[in-house]
């Protein structure tokens, strides 16, 4: 999303789903994993909206669909590419939108190429791309050259057309197993009924082509003009109640809070950091340092830039990589808070082996989850394990106050309903006590490495209060010590005069705790609920809503008016907060036209080009590296989405057999004994894994709740009737499912909800397994991640849980 629109967040909101005319639900089983979505989808259905579900299985979501297409897991880009091709070839795109709000007219560098499955710049030694050729042709003003018409052969639009011309419905059918006629039917619905919204979740991201799959949605939605509009958008349904919040707080290893890029080892000074990331990051980074270090971060010490840890960019320390390094003995201590890695990480053998290499593991959880008792898993001899394990009892969500940020970017405050039971403590209390204790231990140290610990501004109270944390995120005017009232106050303040722990949260507690607001009126009837909690940024409910207006600043959809230009007041106004550069800039001004203000080009990016805005026209006299204003977000594996087969696939890539898989995919390779790869001859069936509504994630909580266990008492494998007949099993039998990495025995469900399909003329079977079980809890069962493969998307580091190859036989 970020390389396309400028922000890595769901564009619309749960309650906006009621405004859609069509839903394309691909890679989300929202009825099971985000039940609240169906509340709003059902409202839209009542008004006549149509639902398209594309999924490897006929899910509970699919049971509510008007059109269902069973897809081979991991082939989404093939069918989306075909839809994009159809839209382009038949001029079914929104021409005004494409011309004005996307980079379609910008000219691409002549050095950019795509040949035989590889984009230009690939280095086969490192399996990485150099991105220099994925750029624009720049004018003397260092701005991208703009063509007169879309047909100019150099334009993004022409490149897009050429790239997707290879994707016919017939080709997509051969790859995905979805009949071409059904694909055309979907494309026709998608092209005609507007607005259409896209819903996706882990079904789309848990692939070695995860980021590019989302990019394909972005390209399609930009062509259709569906971004920035009520009932449109791309809705990334976040897994847990606070996944959005934790991502805002930098749970991705290469971020700092507020989506600031993390500094890397070559950033010796703030200036080095700004050369790479643009001057736009100066204020938020300095404000963050002020929030963390107060007066200890000042102009004289480079705003405390040296206090920040620096990443080694070669390591790419995603979750799986951490376990890989742990397995190699690089960690002494693991502090594991609320994660049940032994159930949830792909290729369990990796985690099982890695945990034994630790000196100590501290685990904070409600229950003694599988990870906490890895040392006594059946088959493991506790005497062989040297790792010391310490368990902290954690308070449950209802036992602690604080805020949760949902998929709609609503920061919602909640009070503690009851006091924690027994010795359990809220995370904040635990971390506060731990930090204070550690700081005491470091007292008096003069070592530079200890400075961040000693100089941190840590003042959440004797008894820490969550509201003080939220206030730190909101930010203060450091000159007066007062909370920043709004985002605008942060934006207009000079660098270094304000602090914010997460600049996008500015305004959340500036005028009272707005996260605690519960105004449930909806005057516009569009589900905006502006007085319910606080949405970042600046209480804007639908991102990029400038794109819902025409060039004159008037809403293009009279039934769904979000914002408009009020010529009498000389101001952008509306039902929603206007997502514009400056509310006083008229729609015909250069700033007033920009619908995607977080992108350096100010437009939506069909082609994710390398670009930095604001570079000087002539090299500076001091010969220092220049600092631009804002860099574009990049995808490390290509500026345009391209279909690649999963790492374990039953077939070769029909488009380019020699580059079958994503060439940049990260595949755990340092432990060949652990990470074996299966061949279709030995493991002929495609396994896809998922959650069920009755259990939550790794089941650490839900498998200890008897009322949920009776709803889904055991793990299972779902197979088609054809496959059941072929291998001679019937419903209720126990079957053994095996991959190159492990095997499990589970209950067999035989169902019509999975059908045999054809891949390039060959009968193919998908089988499905939920993954929420482990050996502990009130409802133990085998873990499906015994089978999965640790292969990761190169951009996001998300593992390919959704596809691997397996065999199946009667147990």
């Amino acid at each position, binding site marked *: 999303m970020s390389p396309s629109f400028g922000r890595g967040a769901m564009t619309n909101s749960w309650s906006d789903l009621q405004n859609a005319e069509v839903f394309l639900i691909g890679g989300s089983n929202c*009825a*099971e994993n985000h*039940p*609240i979505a*169906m*509340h709003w989808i*059902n*409202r839209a*259905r*009542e008004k*006549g909206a149509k639902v398209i579900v594309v999924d490897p299985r*006929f899910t*509970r*979501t*699919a*049971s*509510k669909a*008007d059109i*269902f297409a069973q897809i081979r897991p991991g082939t989404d880009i093939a069918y989306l590419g075909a839809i994009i091709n159809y839209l382009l070839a038949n001029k079914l795109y929104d021409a005004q939108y494409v011309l004005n709000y996307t980079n379609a007219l910008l000219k691409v560098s002549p050095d950019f190429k795509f040949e035989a499955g590889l984009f230009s710049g690939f280095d086969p030694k490192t399996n990485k791309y150099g991105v220099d050729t994925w750029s624009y042709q720049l004018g003397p003003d260092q701005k991208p050259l703009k063509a007169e018409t879309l047909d100019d052969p150099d334009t993004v639009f022409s490149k897009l057309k050429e790239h997707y011309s290879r994707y016919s419905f017939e080709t997509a059918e051969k790859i995905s197993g979805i009949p071409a006629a059904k694909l055309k039917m979907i494309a026709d619905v998608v092209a005609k009924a507007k607005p259409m919204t896209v819903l996706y979740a882990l079904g789309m991201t848990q692939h070695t082509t995860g980021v590019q799959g989302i990019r394909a949605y972005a390209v399609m939605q930009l062509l259709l003009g569906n971004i920035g509009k009520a009932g449109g958008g791309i809705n990334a349904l976040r897994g847990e109640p606070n996944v959005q919040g934790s991502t805002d707080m930098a749970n991705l290893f290469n971020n700092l809070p507020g989506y600031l890029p993390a500094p890397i080892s070559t950033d010796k000074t703030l200036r080095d950091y700004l050369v790479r990331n643009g001057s736009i990051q100066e204020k938020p980074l300095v404000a963050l340092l002020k929030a963390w270090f107060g007066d200890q971060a000042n102009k004289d010490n480079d705003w405390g830039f040296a206090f920040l840890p620096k990443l080694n960019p070669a390591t790419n320390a995603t979750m799986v990589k951490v376990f890989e390094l742990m397995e190699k003995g690089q960690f002494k201590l693991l502090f594991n808070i609320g994660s049940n890695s032994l159930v949830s990480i792909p290729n369990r053998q990796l985690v099982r082996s890695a945990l034994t290499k630790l000196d100590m593991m501290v685990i904070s959880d409600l229950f003694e989850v599988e990870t906490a008792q890895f040392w006594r898993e059946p088959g493991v001899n506790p005497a062989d394990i040297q790792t010391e394990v310490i368990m902290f009892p954690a308070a449950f969500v209802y036992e602690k106050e604080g805020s949760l940020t949902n998929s709609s970017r609503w920061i919602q405050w909640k009070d503690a309903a009851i006091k924690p039971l027994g010795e359990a403590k809220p995370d904040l209390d635990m971390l506060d006590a731990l930090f204070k204790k550690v700081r005491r231990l470091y007292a008096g140290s003069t070592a530079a490495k200890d400075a961040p610990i000693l100089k941190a501004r840590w003042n959440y109270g004797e008894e820490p209060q969550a509201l003080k944390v939220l206030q730190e995120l909101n930010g203060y005017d450091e000159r007066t010590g007062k909370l920043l009232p709004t985002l605008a106050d942060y934006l207009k303040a000079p660098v270094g005069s304000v602090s914010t722990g997460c600049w996008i949260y500015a305004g959340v507690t500036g005028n009272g705790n707005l996260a605690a607001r519960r105004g449930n009126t909806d005057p516009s009837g569009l589900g905006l609920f502006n007085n319910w909690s606080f949405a970042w940024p600046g209480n804007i409910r639908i991102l990029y809503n400038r794109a819902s207006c025409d060039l004159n600043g008037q809403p293009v959809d009279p039934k769904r008016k979000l914002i408009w230009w009020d010529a009498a007041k000389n101001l952008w106004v509306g039902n929603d907060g206007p997502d514009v550069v400056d509310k006083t800039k008229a729609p015909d001004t250069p700033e007033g036209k920009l619908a995607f203000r977080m992108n350096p080009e100010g437009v939506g990016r069909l082609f994710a080009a390398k670009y930095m805005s604001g570079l000087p026209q002539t090299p500076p006299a001091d010969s220092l590296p220049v600092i631009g204003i804002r860099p574009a977000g990049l995808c490390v594996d290509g500026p345009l989405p391209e279909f690649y087969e999963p790492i374990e696939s039953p077939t070769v890539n029909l488009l380019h057999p020699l580059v079958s898989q994503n060439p940049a995919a990260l595949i755990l390779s340092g432990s060949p004994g652990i990470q074996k790869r299966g061949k279709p001859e030995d493991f002929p069936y495609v396994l896809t894994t998922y959650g*069920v*509504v*009755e259990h939550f994630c790794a089941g650490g909580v839900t498998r200890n709740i*008897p*009322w*949920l*266990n*009776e*709803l*889904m*008492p*055991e793990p*299972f494998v779902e197979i088609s009737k054809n496959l059941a007949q072929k291998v001679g099993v*019937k*419903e*209720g039998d126990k079957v053994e499912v095996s991959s190159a990495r492990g095997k499990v025995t589970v*209950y067999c*469900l035989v*169902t*019509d*909800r999975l059908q045999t399909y054809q891949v390039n003329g060959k009968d193919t079977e998908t089988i499905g397994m939920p993954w929420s079980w482990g050996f502990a809890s009130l409802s133990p069962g085998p873990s499906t991640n015994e089978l999965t493969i640790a292969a990761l998307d190169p951009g996001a580091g998300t593992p390919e849980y959704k596809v691997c190859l397996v065999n199946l036989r009667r147990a």
Partner: protein
Amino acid sequence: MARKTVFVDTSKCTGCKACTVACKEWNELPAEKTHLVTSYQTMKDFTPNTWTYLTFIEKYQNNTMDWYMRKAQCFHCAEPACLKACSSAAIHKTDSGYVVIDQDKCIGCGYCVENCPFGVPKVDEVRKKAYKCTGCIDRVENNLTPACVQTCQPGALEYGERDTLLPKAKARLEQVKKEHAQARLYGETEMGGTTFLYLLFDSPDVYGLPNNPTMPLSLSLWQDFVRPVGTFAVGGAAAAVVVGVLGNLFKGRYSSGSEKRDLSDGSEQEKGGKR
């Protein structure tokens, strides 16, 4: 109190089973040991501790998959067979349309179990009491909605006055029928009109429900002839013996009459037997 209704719109139900948990939580019912029965269904039938559960019916024809999910619980009939059958006058019907078992009066004789055309009440053999969905009478009499309705996220359950909800249900049916010609309401007239009113995608027997649920014939005999005479002549206990005999006589009819014993979960029981 005006007649109430819970409109169960199965076209909106996503089979999330939250209603089952809400029911158990409010009524403080313990979990039971279950297994997968068929599809995603894990509860075979009502029990003294399970008053509502989800049925899952998979139907594949003409290359089209249908997956019907239905919340099962007491229908709360306007003409309840259980009430008529009750030997101890423990069952009564409220003005709002609720059929409620008075646990103080119930002796666990099981006549309600035998006579309910939907197989809803179940006797706890230890406590010697019959149990079933109360309709959350304790909530609705305190201006709360039933627990299942309160928790339903997809909005498949709606609680309100029958006069309001019946026209709404009919309007929704017209809409659903455009795509599902076989869709219908169930409970508008069945058993005198049931408090739980369903919108079904297909005919009731597809869901394992009786197409034409009726009051068992033996029950009419018992209620209208035997009991008045027996009570008058020899007292209640003897009358119960009489009805036991009669019950056995008619039992053959129950089992062979497909509609009467073909409970909501009939098909699943058969499949469940494999385990």
